[in-house]
Protein backbone atom coordinates (compact mmCIF):
# COMPACT_ATOMS: atom_id res chain seq x y z
CA UNK A 1 0.00 0.00 0.00
CA UNK A 2 2.66 2.42 1.00
CA UNK A 3 4.62 1.57 -2.11
CA UNK A 4 1.65 2.32 -4.31
CA UNK A 5 1.18 5.66 -2.62
CA UNK A 6 4.77 6.68 -3.07
CA UNK A 7 4.52 5.77 -6.74
CA UNK A 8 1.59 8.10 -7.09
CA UNK A 9 3.53 10.78 -5.30
CA UNK A 10 6.16 10.60 -8.04
CA UNK A 11 3.88 10.11 -10.99
CA UNK A 12 1.31 12.76 -10.24
CA UNK A 13 3.51 15.84 -10.56
CA UNK A 14 5.01 14.43 -13.75
CA UNK A 15 1.62 13.84 -15.34
CA UNK A 16 0.35 17.20 -14.17
CA UNK A 17 3.38 18.96 -15.57
CA UNK A 18 2.89 17.26 -18.92
CA UNK A 19 -0.79 18.10 -18.93
CA UNK A 20 0.15 21.70 -18.25
CA UNK A 21 2.57 21.65 -21.14
CA UNK A 22 0.04 20.38 -23.61
CA UNK A 23 -2.51 22.82 -22.25
CA UNK A 24 -0.21 25.66 -23.20
CA UNK A 25 -0.02 24.48 -26.75
CA UNK A 26 -3.72 24.03 -27.39
CA UNK A 27 -3.84 27.50 -28.86
CA UNK A 28 -6.72 29.10 -27.04
CA UNK A 29 -7.05 32.59 -28.40
CA UNK A 30 -5.15 34.66 -25.90
CA UNK A 31 -6.93 37.74 -27.08
CA UNK A 32 -10.48 36.68 -26.24
CA UNK A 33 -12.00 39.65 -24.58
CA UNK A 34 -11.70 39.02 -20.89
CA UNK A 35 -15.26 39.92 -20.10
CA UNK A 36 -15.23 41.51 -16.68
CA UNK A 37 -18.05 42.96 -14.63
CA UNK A 38 -18.20 46.14 -16.69
CA UNK A 39 -17.99 44.22 -19.97
CA UNK A 40 -15.64 46.94 -21.23
CA UNK A 41 -12.27 45.38 -20.53
CA UNK A 42 -10.99 44.30 -23.90
CA UNK A 43 -7.85 43.54 -25.80
CA UNK A 44 -7.16 44.50 -29.38
CA UNK A 45 -4.42 42.46 -31.02
CA UNK A 46 -2.71 44.24 -33.89
CA UNK A 47 -0.33 42.47 -36.27
CA UNK A 48 1.77 45.18 -37.90
CA UNK A 49 4.77 45.42 -40.22
CA UNK A 50 8.13 45.88 -38.51
CA UNK A 51 8.49 49.34 -40.04
CA UNK A 52 5.43 50.48 -38.04
CA UNK A 53 6.96 49.58 -34.67
CA UNK A 54 7.54 53.13 -33.42
CA UNK A 55 4.43 54.81 -34.79
CA UNK A 56 1.93 52.09 -33.91
CA UNK A 57 3.28 51.77 -30.37
CA UNK A 58 2.60 55.49 -29.99
CA UNK A 59 -0.88 55.17 -31.51
CA UNK A 60 -1.59 52.24 -29.20
CA UNK A 61 -1.00 54.46 -26.21
CA UNK A 62 -3.28 57.13 -27.68
CA UNK A 63 -5.97 54.49 -28.19
CA UNK A 64 -5.68 53.13 -24.67
CA UNK A 65 -5.97 56.65 -23.25
CA UNK A 66 -9.14 57.26 -25.28
CA UNK A 67 -10.68 53.86 -24.45
CA UNK A 68 -10.06 53.15 -20.76
CA UNK A 69 -10.07 49.45 -19.98
CA UNK A 70 -9.00 48.44 -23.48
CA UNK A 71 -5.44 47.38 -24.08
CA UNK A 72 -3.71 47.13 -27.43
CA UNK A 73 -1.25 44.31 -27.98
CA UNK A 74 1.15 44.35 -30.90
CA UNK A 75 2.91 41.67 -32.87
CA UNK A 76 5.50 43.37 -35.05
CA UNK A 77 7.40 41.47 -37.72
CA UNK A 78 7.95 40.94 -41.39
CA UNK A 79 4.58 41.39 -43.13
CA UNK A 80 5.01 38.09 -44.94
CA UNK A 81 5.61 36.22 -41.68
CA UNK A 82 2.65 37.92 -40.02
CA UNK A 83 0.44 37.06 -42.99
CA UNK A 84 1.41 33.39 -42.67
CA UNK A 85 0.75 33.45 -38.94
CA UNK A 86 -2.76 34.88 -39.52
CA UNK A 87 -3.49 32.33 -42.24
CA UNK A 88 -2.42 29.57 -39.82
CA UNK A 89 -4.97 30.84 -37.31
CA UNK A 90 -3.16 33.34 -35.12
CA UNK A 91 -5.82 35.34 -33.25
CA UNK A 92 -5.41 38.81 -34.72
CA UNK A 93 -7.94 41.65 -34.80
CA UNK A 94 -6.17 44.05 -37.11
CA UNK A 95 -3.52 43.52 -39.79
CA UNK A 96 -1.40 46.40 -41.03
CA UNK A 97 0.91 45.22 -43.81
CA UNK A 98 3.79 46.82 -45.65
CA UNK A 99 2.52 45.70 -49.04
CA UNK A 100 -0.78 44.88 -50.76
CA UNK A 101 0.65 41.47 -51.72
CA UNK A 102 1.02 40.34 -48.10
CA UNK A 103 -2.47 41.68 -47.31
CA UNK A 104 -3.79 39.63 -50.23
CA UNK A 105 -2.32 36.46 -48.70
CA UNK A 106 -4.58 37.07 -45.71
CA UNK A 107 -7.73 38.18 -47.53
CA UNK A 108 -7.46 35.21 -49.92
CA UNK A 109 -7.49 32.77 -47.05
CA UNK A 110 -10.26 34.35 -44.99
CA UNK A 111 -12.49 37.32 -45.60
CA UNK A 112 -11.21 40.54 -44.09
CA UNK A 113 -12.79 43.97 -44.21
CA UNK A 114 -11.81 45.71 -47.42
CA UNK A 115 -8.31 47.03 -46.75
CA UNK A 116 -7.65 50.75 -46.94
CA UNK A 117 -4.24 52.22 -47.74
CA UNK A 118 -3.22 54.42 -44.82
CA UNK A 119 0.36 55.39 -45.65
CA UNK A 120 3.02 54.96 -48.27
CA UNK A 121 6.72 54.43 -47.73
CA UNK A 122 9.63 55.22 -49.98
CA UNK A 123 13.05 53.63 -50.25
CA UNK A 124 16.26 55.46 -49.49
CA UNK A 125 19.89 54.47 -49.75
CA UNK A 126 21.17 54.04 -46.21
CA UNK A 127 24.91 54.46 -45.63
CA UNK A 128 26.96 54.42 -42.41
CA UNK A 129 27.25 57.89 -40.87
CA UNK A 130 30.81 58.32 -42.22
CA UNK A 131 29.88 56.88 -45.65
CA UNK A 132 33.18 54.98 -46.15
CA UNK A 133 32.49 54.00 -49.76
CA UNK A 134 31.43 57.55 -50.70
CA UNK A 135 28.06 56.51 -52.07
CA UNK A 136 26.11 59.38 -53.66
CA UNK A 137 23.46 57.78 -55.81
CA UNK A 138 21.96 54.48 -56.87
CA UNK A 139 24.55 53.94 -59.60
CA UNK A 140 27.36 53.77 -57.00
CA UNK A 141 25.82 50.54 -55.68
CA UNK A 142 26.73 48.70 -58.89
CA UNK A 143 30.44 49.08 -58.07
CA UNK A 144 31.68 45.64 -57.02
CA UNK A 145 33.87 47.22 -54.34
CA UNK A 146 30.78 48.60 -52.60
CA UNK A 147 29.19 46.06 -50.27
CA UNK A 148 25.42 46.25 -50.47
CA UNK A 149 22.71 44.65 -48.34
CA UNK A 150 19.19 44.29 -49.71
CA UNK A 151 16.04 42.77 -48.26
CA UNK A 152 15.15 39.36 -49.69
CA UNK A 153 12.70 39.56 -52.57
CA UNK A 154 10.10 37.63 -50.57
CA UNK A 155 9.58 40.53 -48.13
CA UNK A 156 8.07 43.90 -49.13
CA UNK A 157 11.24 46.02 -48.82
CA UNK A 158 13.07 43.55 -51.06
CA UNK A 159 10.33 43.57 -53.67
CA UNK A 160 10.45 47.37 -53.67
CA UNK A 161 14.26 47.33 -54.03
CA UNK A 162 14.02 45.06 -57.08
CA UNK A 163 11.39 47.35 -58.59
CA UNK A 164 13.49 50.46 -58.02
CA UNK A 165 16.64 48.90 -59.47
CA UNK A 166 14.69 47.65 -62.48
CA UNK A 167 13.28 51.14 -63.00
CA UNK A 168 16.81 52.51 -62.97
CA UNK A 169 18.04 49.75 -65.27
CA UNK A 170 20.79 48.86 -62.81
CA UNK A 171 22.09 45.50 -61.72
CA UNK A 172 23.36 45.30 -58.16
CA UNK A 173 24.98 42.20 -56.68
CA UNK A 174 24.37 42.38 -52.93
CA UNK A 175 26.51 40.49 -50.43
CA UNK A 176 23.43 39.52 -48.47
CA UNK A 177 19.63 39.33 -48.75
CA UNK A 178 18.26 40.02 -45.28
CA UNK A 179 15.05 38.64 -43.89
CA UNK A 180 13.52 41.97 -42.94
CA UNK A 181 14.18 45.67 -43.17
CA UNK A 182 15.42 46.03 -39.59
CA UNK A 183 18.07 43.33 -40.14
CA UNK A 184 19.17 45.12 -43.31
CA UNK A 185 19.47 48.39 -41.43
CA UNK A 186 21.48 46.73 -38.63
CA UNK A 187 24.12 45.65 -41.17
CA UNK A 188 24.56 49.32 -42.11
CA UNK A 189 24.57 50.49 -38.50
CA UNK A 190 27.35 48.04 -37.70
CA UNK A 191 29.30 49.16 -40.74
CA UNK A 192 29.38 45.64 -42.20
CA UNK A 193 28.02 46.91 -45.50
CA UNK A 194 28.62 50.20 -47.27
CA UNK A 195 25.06 50.74 -48.36
CA UNK A 196 21.57 49.25 -48.24
CA UNK A 197 18.13 50.02 -49.61
CA UNK A 198 15.71 50.54 -46.72
CA UNK A 199 12.65 52.66 -46.05
CA UNK A 200 12.98 56.35 -45.39
CA UNK A 201 11.17 55.81 -42.07
CA UNK A 202 13.85 53.35 -40.93
CA UNK A 203 16.58 55.88 -41.68
CA UNK A 204 14.73 58.48 -39.58
CA UNK A 205 14.14 55.96 -36.79
CA UNK A 206 17.85 55.11 -36.61
CA UNK A 207 18.42 58.60 -35.22
CA UNK A 208 21.66 59.54 -36.92
CA UNK A 209 23.36 56.15 -36.87
CA UNK A 210 22.87 55.88 -40.63
CA UNK A 211 22.51 58.54 -43.30
CA UNK A 212 19.76 58.44 -45.91
CA UNK A 213 20.23 59.38 -49.54
CA UNK A 214 17.19 60.00 -51.71
CA UNK A 215 17.14 58.75 -55.28
CA UNK A 216 14.63 59.52 -58.04
CA UNK A 217 13.80 55.90 -58.97
CA UNK A 218 12.36 55.39 -55.49
CA UNK A 219 9.20 57.06 -56.78
CA UNK A 220 8.58 54.04 -58.99
CA UNK A 221 8.75 51.61 -56.09
CA UNK A 222 6.51 53.18 -53.48
CA UNK A 223 5.00 50.74 -51.01
CA UNK A 224 1.35 51.11 -50.10
CA UNK A 225 0.53 50.05 -46.54
CA UNK A 226 -2.97 48.55 -46.25
CA UNK A 227 -4.82 48.06 -42.97
CA UNK A 228 -7.88 45.91 -42.34
CA UNK A 229 -9.85 44.31 -39.54
CA UNK A 230 -10.03 40.55 -39.75
CA UNK A 231 -13.29 38.67 -40.14
CA UNK A 232 -12.92 36.62 -36.99
CA UNK A 233 -11.62 39.57 -34.94
CA UNK A 234 -12.20 38.56 -31.31
CA UNK A 235 -12.27 42.20 -30.22
CA UNK A 236 -15.13 43.10 -32.56
CA UNK A 237 -15.95 46.81 -32.63
CA UNK A 238 -12.77 47.83 -30.80
CA UNK A 239 -10.77 46.54 -33.78
CA UNK A 240 -12.58 48.89 -36.13
CA UNK A 241 -12.08 51.76 -33.66
CA UNK A 242 -8.32 51.19 -33.77
CA UNK A 243 -8.35 51.22 -37.58
CA UNK A 244 -10.39 54.44 -37.45
CA UNK A 245 -7.74 56.01 -35.22
CA UNK A 246 -4.97 55.08 -37.67
CA UNK A 247 -6.96 56.60 -40.54
CA UNK A 248 -7.85 59.76 -38.56
CA UNK A 249 -6.01 63.08 -38.78
CA UNK A 250 -4.32 62.30 -35.45
CA UNK A 251 -3.05 59.02 -36.86
CA UNK A 252 -1.82 60.71 -40.01
CA UNK A 253 0.11 63.27 -37.94
CA UNK A 254 1.96 60.57 -36.01
CA UNK A 255 2.78 58.65 -39.16
CA UNK A 256 3.94 61.56 -41.30
CA UNK A 257 6.13 62.82 -38.47
CA UNK A 258 7.99 59.49 -38.69
CA UNK A 259 8.61 59.93 -42.41
CA UNK A 260 5.62 58.14 -43.94
CA UNK A 261 3.81 59.79 -46.82
CA UNK A 262 0.07 60.28 -47.00
CA UNK A 263 -1.54 57.98 -49.58
Amino acid sequence: MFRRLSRWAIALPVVLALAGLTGCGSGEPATSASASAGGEAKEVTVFAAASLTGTFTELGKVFEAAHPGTTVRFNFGSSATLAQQIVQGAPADVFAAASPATMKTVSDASPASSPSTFVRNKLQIAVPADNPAKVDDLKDLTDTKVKVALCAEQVPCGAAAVKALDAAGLKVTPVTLEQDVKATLTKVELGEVDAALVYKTDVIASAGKVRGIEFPEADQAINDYPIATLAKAPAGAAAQQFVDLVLSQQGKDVLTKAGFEAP
Partner: protein
Amino acid sequence: MGPRRGLTGRRPAGRAASGRLPWVLVLPAVLGLVFLVLPLAGLLIRAPWPTLLARLAEPHVLEALRLSLVCATVATAVCLLLGVPLAWLLARVDFPGRRLVRALVTVPLVLPPVVGGVALLLVLGRRGLVGQWLEATFGITLPFTTAGVIIAEAFVAMPFLVISVEGALRGADQRFEEAAATLGASRWTIFRRVTLPLIMPGVVAGAVLCWARALGEFGATITFAGNFPGTTRTMPLAVYLALETEPEAAIVLSLVLLAVSVIVLASLRDRWVSAP
Protein backbone atom coordinates in the same frame (compact mmCIF):
# COMPACT_ATOMS: atom_id res chain seq x y z
CA MET B 1 28.44 2.43 -25.31
CA GLY B 2 29.57 -0.98 -26.63
CA PRO B 3 33.24 -0.37 -27.37
CA ARG B 4 34.16 -0.29 -23.71
CA ARG B 5 34.25 -4.08 -23.71
CA GLY B 6 36.12 -5.45 -20.78
CA LEU B 7 37.85 -2.24 -19.85
CA THR B 8 35.59 -1.31 -17.02
CA GLY B 9 34.07 -4.72 -16.58
CA ARG B 10 30.55 -3.44 -17.28
CA ARG B 11 28.04 -5.69 -18.92
CA PRO B 12 25.71 -4.39 -21.60
CA ALA B 13 22.53 -3.02 -20.13
CA GLY B 14 19.15 -4.46 -21.03
CA ARG B 15 19.51 -7.97 -19.77
CA ALA B 16 20.42 -6.75 -16.32
CA ALA B 17 16.90 -5.87 -15.25
CA SER B 18 13.86 -8.03 -15.70
CA GLY B 19 10.26 -8.06 -14.60
CA ARG B 20 7.37 -5.75 -15.29
CA LEU B 21 8.05 -2.40 -16.88
CA PRO B 22 7.38 0.39 -14.39
CA TRP B 23 4.62 2.52 -15.89
CA VAL B 24 5.93 5.49 -13.94
CA LEU B 25 8.78 5.48 -16.44
CA VAL B 26 7.00 4.11 -19.49
CA LEU B 27 4.14 6.63 -19.53
CA PRO B 28 6.32 9.78 -19.51
CA ALA B 29 8.66 8.08 -21.98
CA VAL B 30 5.84 7.51 -24.46
CA LEU B 31 4.50 11.03 -23.93
CA GLY B 32 8.00 12.39 -24.50
CA LEU B 33 8.35 10.42 -27.70
CA VAL B 34 4.97 11.61 -28.99
CA PHE B 35 5.92 15.18 -28.14
CA LEU B 36 9.12 14.88 -30.17
CA VAL B 37 7.69 12.98 -33.12
CA LEU B 38 4.35 14.73 -33.57
CA PRO B 39 5.76 17.89 -35.24
CA LEU B 40 7.62 15.67 -37.71
CA ALA B 41 4.38 13.90 -38.48
CA GLY B 42 2.84 17.31 -39.10
CA LEU B 43 5.51 18.03 -41.72
CA LEU B 44 4.91 14.70 -43.42
CA ILE B 45 1.13 15.10 -43.46
CA ARG B 46 1.21 18.62 -44.89
CA ALA B 47 3.92 17.93 -47.46
CA PRO B 48 2.87 18.61 -51.07
CA TRP B 49 3.59 15.05 -52.22
CA PRO B 50 2.42 15.41 -55.87
CA THR B 51 4.85 18.25 -56.61
CA LEU B 52 7.59 17.03 -54.30
CA LEU B 53 9.96 15.69 -56.94
CA ALA B 54 9.67 18.74 -59.18
CA ARG B 55 10.42 21.01 -56.23
CA LEU B 56 13.40 18.91 -55.18
CA ALA B 57 14.97 19.12 -58.61
CA GLU B 58 15.13 22.91 -58.48
CA PRO B 59 18.77 23.97 -58.60
CA HIS B 60 18.55 26.32 -55.63
CA VAL B 61 17.47 23.43 -53.39
CA LEU B 62 20.48 21.32 -54.33
CA GLU B 63 22.74 24.36 -54.02
CA ALA B 64 21.55 25.08 -50.48
CA LEU B 65 21.80 21.40 -49.53
CA ARG B 66 25.36 21.12 -50.84
CA LEU B 67 26.37 24.28 -49.02
CA SER B 68 24.78 23.02 -45.80
CA LEU B 69 26.58 19.68 -45.95
CA VAL B 70 29.96 21.20 -46.81
CA CYS B 71 29.76 23.89 -44.10
CA ALA B 72 28.54 21.53 -41.37
CA THR B 73 31.29 19.04 -42.20
CA VAL B 74 34.10 21.61 -42.27
CA ALA B 75 32.75 23.19 -39.08
CA THR B 76 32.83 19.77 -37.42
CA ALA B 77 36.43 19.27 -38.54
CA VAL B 78 37.35 22.65 -37.04
CA CYS B 79 35.56 21.71 -33.81
CA LEU B 80 37.44 18.39 -33.65
CA LEU B 81 40.81 20.09 -34.16
CA LEU B 82 40.19 22.66 -31.45
CA GLY B 83 37.60 20.99 -29.26
CA VAL B 84 39.28 17.67 -28.46
CA PRO B 85 42.44 19.37 -27.09
CA LEU B 86 40.22 21.80 -25.18
CA ALA B 87 38.29 18.92 -23.63
CA TRP B 88 41.60 17.22 -22.74
CA LEU B 89 42.78 20.42 -21.07
CA LEU B 90 39.60 20.66 -19.02
CA ALA B 91 39.62 17.01 -17.98
CA ARG B 92 43.30 16.26 -17.45
CA VAL B 93 45.15 19.45 -16.57
CA ASP B 94 44.65 21.15 -13.25
CA PHE B 95 44.96 24.88 -13.71
CA PRO B 96 43.60 27.86 -11.80
CA GLY B 97 40.20 29.02 -12.99
CA ARG B 98 39.34 25.70 -14.57
CA ARG B 99 35.74 25.82 -13.35
CA LEU B 100 35.31 29.26 -14.86
CA VAL B 101 36.76 28.11 -18.18
CA ARG B 102 34.43 25.12 -18.19
CA ALA B 103 31.46 27.43 -17.65
CA LEU B 104 32.67 29.74 -20.42
CA VAL B 105 32.88 26.84 -22.86
CA THR B 106 29.17 26.23 -22.46
CA VAL B 107 28.21 29.86 -23.08
CA PRO B 108 27.28 29.29 -26.74
CA LEU B 109 24.79 26.68 -25.52
CA VAL B 110 22.76 29.16 -23.53
CA LEU B 111 23.34 32.18 -25.74
CA PRO B 112 20.52 32.74 -28.24
CA PRO B 113 22.22 32.03 -31.59
CA VAL B 114 21.24 35.45 -32.94
CA VAL B 115 23.10 37.06 -30.03
CA GLY B 116 26.05 34.80 -30.84
CA GLY B 117 25.92 36.12 -34.40
CA VAL B 118 25.94 39.73 -33.20
CA ALA B 119 28.86 38.94 -30.88
CA LEU B 120 30.77 37.41 -33.78
CA LEU B 121 30.08 40.52 -35.86
CA LEU B 122 31.40 42.75 -33.09
CA VAL B 123 34.65 40.78 -32.95
CA LEU B 124 35.20 39.47 -36.47
CA GLY B 125 33.12 41.97 -38.44
CA ARG B 126 34.63 44.61 -40.64
CA ARG B 127 34.71 47.08 -37.76
CA GLY B 128 35.20 44.43 -35.08
CA LEU B 129 38.15 44.15 -32.74
CA VAL B 130 39.88 41.37 -34.66
CA GLY B 131 38.10 41.82 -37.97
CA GLN B 132 39.47 45.31 -38.44
CA TRP B 133 42.99 44.01 -38.09
CA LEU B 134 42.30 41.02 -40.37
CA GLU B 135 41.10 43.32 -43.12
CA ALA B 136 43.95 45.80 -42.73
CA THR B 137 46.67 43.14 -42.59
CA PHE B 138 45.49 40.35 -44.84
CA GLY B 139 42.57 41.90 -46.68
CA ILE B 140 40.27 39.22 -45.26
CA THR B 141 36.65 39.96 -44.41
CA LEU B 142 34.64 37.14 -42.89
CA PRO B 143 31.00 38.31 -42.85
CA PHE B 144 28.99 37.37 -45.94
CA THR B 145 31.41 34.58 -46.91
CA THR B 146 31.20 30.81 -46.74
CA ALA B 147 34.04 30.94 -44.21
CA GLY B 148 31.73 33.11 -42.11
CA VAL B 149 29.06 30.40 -42.19
CA ILE B 150 31.61 27.83 -40.99
CA ILE B 151 32.74 30.10 -38.16
CA ALA B 152 29.17 30.76 -37.03
CA GLU B 153 28.35 27.04 -37.10
CA ALA B 154 31.56 26.06 -35.29
CA PHE B 155 30.91 28.67 -32.61
CA VAL B 156 27.46 27.32 -31.87
CA ALA B 157 28.28 23.61 -32.23
CA MET B 158 31.66 23.26 -30.50
CA PRO B 159 30.31 23.01 -26.92
CA PHE B 160 28.44 19.83 -27.87
CA LEU B 161 31.74 18.23 -28.86
CA VAL B 162 33.73 19.54 -25.91
CA ILE B 163 31.17 18.42 -23.33
CA SER B 164 30.85 15.00 -24.88
CA VAL B 165 34.61 14.42 -25.14
CA GLU B 166 35.26 15.77 -21.67
CA GLY B 167 32.66 13.38 -20.29
CA ALA B 168 34.36 10.50 -22.07
CA LEU B 169 37.75 11.56 -20.68
CA ARG B 170 36.43 11.68 -17.15
CA GLY B 171 34.81 8.29 -17.55
CA ALA B 172 37.92 6.69 -19.03
CA ASP B 173 40.16 4.67 -16.74
CA GLN B 174 43.24 6.77 -15.99
CA ARG B 175 45.28 3.76 -14.86
CA PHE B 176 46.11 3.00 -18.49
CA GLU B 177 47.58 6.46 -18.88
CA GLU B 178 49.48 6.10 -15.62
CA ALA B 179 50.86 2.74 -16.74
CA ALA B 180 52.03 4.29 -20.01
CA ALA B 181 53.66 7.12 -18.07
CA THR B 182 55.57 4.73 -15.82
CA LEU B 183 56.85 3.04 -18.98
CA GLY B 184 58.33 6.36 -20.04
CA ALA B 185 55.81 7.65 -22.60
CA SER B 186 55.51 11.41 -23.00
CA ARG B 187 52.16 13.11 -22.42
CA TRP B 188 51.67 13.59 -26.16
CA THR B 189 52.40 9.92 -26.87
CA ILE B 190 50.03 8.91 -24.09
CA PHE B 191 47.31 11.12 -25.52
CA ARG B 192 47.82 9.76 -29.03
CA ARG B 193 48.34 6.06 -28.29
CA VAL B 194 46.30 5.50 -25.13
CA THR B 195 43.81 8.25 -24.35
CA LEU B 196 42.46 8.93 -27.83
CA PRO B 197 41.71 5.27 -28.71
CA LEU B 198 40.11 4.88 -25.29
CA ILE B 199 37.71 7.77 -25.73
CA MET B 200 37.03 7.31 -29.46
CA PRO B 201 33.33 6.47 -28.99
CA GLY B 202 32.86 9.69 -27.03
CA VAL B 203 34.68 11.70 -29.70
CA VAL B 204 32.55 10.21 -32.46
CA ALA B 205 29.33 10.77 -30.53
CA GLY B 206 30.37 14.36 -29.86
CA ALA B 207 31.28 14.91 -33.50
CA VAL B 208 27.92 13.57 -34.61
CA LEU B 209 26.06 15.88 -32.22
CA CYS B 210 28.25 18.77 -33.31
CA TRP B 211 27.60 18.06 -36.99
CA ALA B 212 23.85 17.80 -36.46
CA ARG B 213 23.79 21.10 -34.56
CA ALA B 214 25.87 22.79 -37.26
CA LEU B 215 23.58 21.48 -40.00
CA GLY B 216 20.53 23.03 -38.38
CA GLU B 217 22.22 26.30 -37.41
CA PHE B 218 20.17 29.36 -38.31
CA GLY B 219 20.40 32.39 -36.03
CA ALA B 220 24.14 32.94 -35.84
CA THR B 221 24.54 32.17 -39.54
CA ILE B 222 21.96 34.66 -40.81
CA THR B 223 23.25 37.34 -38.45
CA PHE B 224 26.98 36.90 -38.99
CA ALA B 225 27.23 35.48 -42.50
CA GLY B 226 24.11 36.97 -44.05
CA ASN B 227 22.01 35.24 -46.64
CA PHE B 228 23.03 34.93 -50.26
CA PRO B 229 22.33 31.98 -52.55
CA GLY B 230 25.41 29.86 -53.24
CA THR B 231 27.70 31.45 -50.67
CA THR B 232 25.84 31.69 -47.37
CA ARG B 233 22.25 30.49 -47.86
CA THR B 234 22.18 27.13 -46.09
CA MET B 235 19.07 24.95 -45.86
CA PRO B 236 17.70 26.44 -42.62
CA LEU B 237 17.96 29.94 -44.13
CA ALA B 238 16.26 28.76 -47.31
CA VAL B 239 13.47 27.23 -45.19
CA TYR B 240 12.96 30.48 -43.31
CA LEU B 241 12.80 32.57 -46.47
CA ALA B 242 10.48 30.14 -48.21
CA LEU B 243 8.18 30.32 -45.20
CA GLU B 244 7.64 34.01 -45.95
CA THR B 245 5.79 33.33 -49.15
CA GLU B 246 5.52 29.63 -49.90
CA PRO B 247 4.95 27.44 -46.85
CA GLU B 248 4.76 24.38 -49.08
CA ALA B 249 8.25 24.96 -50.42
CA ALA B 250 9.44 25.41 -46.84
CA ILE B 251 7.97 22.04 -45.91
CA VAL B 252 9.75 20.38 -48.84
CA LEU B 253 13.07 21.95 -47.84
CA SER B 254 12.56 20.90 -44.23
CA LEU B 255 11.85 17.34 -45.31
CA VAL B 256 15.06 17.24 -47.34
CA LEU B 257 17.10 18.47 -44.40
CA LEU B 258 15.32 16.03 -42.13
CA ALA B 259 15.85 13.06 -44.44
CA VAL B 260 19.53 13.82 -44.99
CA SER B 261 20.28 14.27 -41.32
CA VAL B 262 18.35 11.17 -40.27
CA ILE B 263 20.12 9.06 -42.91
CA VAL B 264 23.55 10.34 -41.93
CA LEU B 265 22.96 10.10 -38.19
CA ALA B 266 21.39 6.64 -38.41
CA SER B 267 24.19 5.24 -40.53
CA LEU B 268 26.83 6.82 -38.30
CA ARG B 269 25.24 5.35 -35.21
CA ASP B 270 25.25 1.87 -36.66
CA ARG B 271 28.75 2.19 -37.97
CA TRP B 272 30.42 3.88 -35.03
CA VAL B 273 28.44 4.70 -31.98
CA SER B 274 26.73 1.47 -31.09
CA ALA B 275 28.96 -1.03 -32.89
CA PRO B 276 30.16 -3.81 -30.58
